[in-house]
């Protein structure tokens, strides 16, 4: 049984460091030497590895200490990153030894992505190589801003200052192009032990810090808690009476009583409590970095992937943005192909709209534009998501400004957002956002209505050419839903023209669409399932309607006479001669699948989603 003692406050902080550089430039040797010279190895480890080397008849290398896989030791290369733990002078380090071989670049990236500072190793004899540059470039892209350059194997060049000086000048010039200023350059021989933990006797011309000193000189990244709030919703829990919005605060802080706005749904509510387990006293505030949970004073429906912020400092919302991306996929990235985009906790399908240029990491020159990005290449792209998402520019916020693309089953690319691109919905989306945030609400919320009606509000949008049976289907569906006890209303676009739109001239379709969208939004707010046919509106108009009723579910049903490809975002498509009752059944099924209709499970009405 553990004894109860107050938590000890300990001096010293923790830092994640990554060691990168070209293959064979001596990263693992540097790490092994650092441990050996500071007596940080477990008892007997050095002897054990020396013994294995003797038995296998090869020369002992410090690199073997951390290359755990047989294959790594046999080939003398690191295949995958190793996390090692190291403490010196009240500071604790997790040191990540990243592989330098081109083939294992994705492993290097996995290692570097969690680092706060980097040691970049360059072989004095070989000089600046391809991966030296690529790794430098990727560090800047990954947001690792503290970089120290270690010029290794100085023993092989006779400890000559001019060789060291030339490498420093060349690499400093390269980093300057990336706007990276290295903390310092250190000449070392990891094999001999020069300037690792102890100052070198062979290089009296160098009086700067050793590698060990350099680690101590890295600064702890300052907290992000002073930035505006970013709280990406990770999940919504209802394990007991509490409905807890769980997530990790990416920036800023949350206090009880704060008015939060969720993007892109534009819903808002006040923070009622900060929840925790075994936390005394009950907290009233949580800050950046914390995995926490909150309850709200109103039961608004929000989902994973939304970002909570304060009203006056909300994130950007668009479907489209410009970015820098590196690709690690086995298959090349292709323009026009569909990928899964994951940004903070949001997951949405996207496609690469434009490949602007591919950057050659060796000289940072733009190569000729092409339609694919190959493995281990870096590119500037415009990405368009299927649905609007909330994000920030990477320069403003780290966590909500970077993303990965998933191809097949794997994370295949990582990128940072450099620019928000206005799409055709930007104007209406901003209107909807201002309207939603300022909306005066009664005490009956959507969840109350849903519970009372047994369904959520939604829009069933029936599209297609004339004489495909849209109008007939809409009528059948309304009858069917009302007979089932669902609160449903048929909204025909033509009706508005005879009332609400009489002040408009016929050509002003844009304003008609806007008004139609706002009316649909209003009806949805009352809790209804709105069934609509809009003969007069085209595909672009349907998108505008979606924007205005967002985030209510829209079920798009397309009717056609022939088997043509339905428009994008269609949920159900029906071609040829039709059995309208069967189609109505399919729509009802789809409404259930999307969680609009509750389903009776036992005596209780249950929704697919959690209210």
């Amino acid at each position, binding site marked *: 049984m*553990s004894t*109860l003692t107050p938590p000890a406050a300990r001096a010293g902080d923790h830092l994640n460091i990554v060691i990168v550089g070209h293959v064979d430039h001596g990263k693992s040797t540097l790490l092994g030497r650092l441990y050996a010279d500071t007596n940080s190895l477990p008892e007997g480890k050095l002897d054990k590895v020396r013994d294995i080397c003797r038995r296998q008849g090869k020369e002992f290398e410090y690199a073997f200490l951390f290359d755990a896989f047989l294959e790594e030791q046999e080939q003398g290369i690191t*295949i995958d990153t190793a996390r090692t*733990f190291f403490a010196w002078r009240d500071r604790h380090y*997790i040191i990540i030894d990243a592989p330098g071989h081109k083939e294992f670049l994705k492993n290097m990236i996995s290692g570097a992505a969690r680092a706060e500072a980097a040691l970049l190793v360059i072989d004095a004899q070989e000089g600046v190589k391809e991966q030296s540059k690529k790794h430098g470039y990727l560090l800047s892209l990954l947001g690792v801003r503290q970089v120290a350059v270690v010029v290794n194997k100085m023993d092989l060049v006779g400890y000559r200052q001019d060789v060291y000086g030339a490498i420093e000048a060349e690499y400093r010039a390269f980093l300057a192009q990336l706007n990276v200023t290295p903390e310092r350059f250190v000449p070392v021989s990891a094999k001999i032990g020069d300037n690792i933990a102890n100052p070198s006797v062979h290089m009296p011309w160098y009086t700067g810090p050793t590698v060990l000193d350099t680690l101590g000189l890295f600064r702890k990244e300052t907290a992000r808690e002073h930035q505006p709030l970013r709280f990406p919703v990770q999940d919504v829990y209802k394990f*007991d009476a509490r409905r807890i919005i769980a997530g990790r605060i990416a920036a800023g802080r949350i206090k009880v009583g704060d008015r939060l706005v969720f993007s892109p749904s534009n819903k808002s509510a006040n923070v009622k409590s900060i929840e925790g387990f075994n936390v005394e006293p009950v907290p009233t505030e949580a800050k950046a970095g914390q995995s926490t949970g909150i309850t709200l004073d109103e039961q608004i429906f929000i989902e994973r992937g939304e970002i909570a912020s304060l009203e006056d400092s909300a994130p950007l919302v668009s479907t489209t943005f410009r970015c820098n991306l590196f690709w690690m996929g086995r298959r090349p990235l292709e323009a026009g192909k569909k990928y899964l985009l994951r940004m903070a906790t949001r997951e949405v399908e996207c496609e690469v709209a434009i490949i602007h240029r591919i950057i050659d990491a060796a000289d940072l020159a733009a190569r000729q534009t092409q339609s694919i990005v190959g493995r281990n290449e870096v590119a500037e792209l415009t990405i368009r998501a299927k649905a609007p998402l909330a994000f920030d520019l990477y320069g403003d916020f780290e966590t909500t400004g970077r993303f990965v693309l998933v191809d097949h089953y794997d994370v295949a690319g990582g990128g940072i957002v450099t620019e928000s691109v206005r799409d055709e919905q930007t104007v209406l989306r901003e209107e909807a956002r201002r309207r939603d945030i300022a909306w005066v609400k009664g005490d009956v919320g959507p969840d109350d209505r849903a519970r009372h009606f047994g369904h959520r509000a939604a829009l069933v949008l029936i599209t297609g050419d004339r004489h495909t049976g849209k109008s007939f289907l809409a009528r059948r569906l309304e009858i069917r839903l009302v007979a089932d006890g669902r609160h449903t209303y048929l909204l025909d676009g033509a009706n508005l023209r005879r009332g609400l739109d009489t002040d408009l001239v016929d050509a002003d379709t844009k304003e008609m669409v806007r008004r139609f969208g706002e009316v649909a939004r209003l009806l949805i707010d009352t809790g209804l399932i709105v069934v609509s046919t809009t003969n007069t509106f085209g595909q672009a108009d349907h998108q505008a309607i979606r924007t205005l009723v967002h985030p209510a579910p829209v079920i798009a049903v397309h009717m056609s006479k022939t088997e043509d490809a339905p428009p994008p975002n269609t949920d159900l498509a029906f071609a040829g001669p039709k059995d309208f009752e069967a189609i109505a059944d399919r729509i009802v099924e789809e409404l259930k699948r999307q969680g609009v209709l509750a389903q009776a499970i036992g005596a209780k009405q249950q929704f697919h989603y959690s209210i």
Partner: protein
Amino acid sequence: MDTHLRRLEDQSVYIFREAYKHFDHLAMLWSMGKDSTVLLWLARKAFFGHVPFPLIHIDTSFKIPAMIEYRDRIVREWRLNLIIGQNKEALANGMNHTMGRVTCCTALKTNGLKNLLAEKGYTGVILGVRADEEGTRAKERYFSPRDKHGDWDFREQPPELWDQFKTTFPEGTHIRIHPLLDWTEVNIWEYIRAESIPIIDLYFDKGEGTRYRSLGCAPCTAPIKSTARTVDEIIEELRHTTVAERSGRAQDEGRGMELLRKDGYM
């Protein structure tokens, strides 16, 4: 709490929540040792006092009896859903450590686990392995895929960046989830102290000058010489030791762990 422990806790909780969100068939291994008990505590942190998935104990039948008593008590007190897996066939055929340690671990632990996973159809399994325990674990991912045979392909590990984990996988494979990867042995004890987590008393010296530092099966786990009677004394002792934590664990000899883990050992 120490800010570093806090960061470790935040990261582990984040991983737990990602796992729970993405895996419909999720379970967690619990060996009653200090690490997986901290893991269990972190699950309760992540889900506000609840553990919304079953726990699995692979019972080799060679566990120290006190571990079973402790297990049953905690299950009762915390109202946990525990599933016990056992390779009964291997045991019936007389499997034990004298037939070779790697052979025995593979049969009773690795295969015991694989059989249970196949039977129950779990696609996500949460484990308490730590990077500082031994070399191959230092190279693990937080979300680490296993193929149809439960094998680990360390050559082709998926990239893992910015807390975007591998949560999609082909049918028939599963993912091992490691929320404790960044924790060290000392961190575990510091957290046990900070949170007052009830830990099995085999870890403490009871006047004989020995205690267990790592728990496994009785025949293959030896206590160490130590007079640490409290969590404080253990932390103090660990801060000054250079002896590896698993020095009392026989299966780590030679290349044992690489071979075991490649085939799906924890």
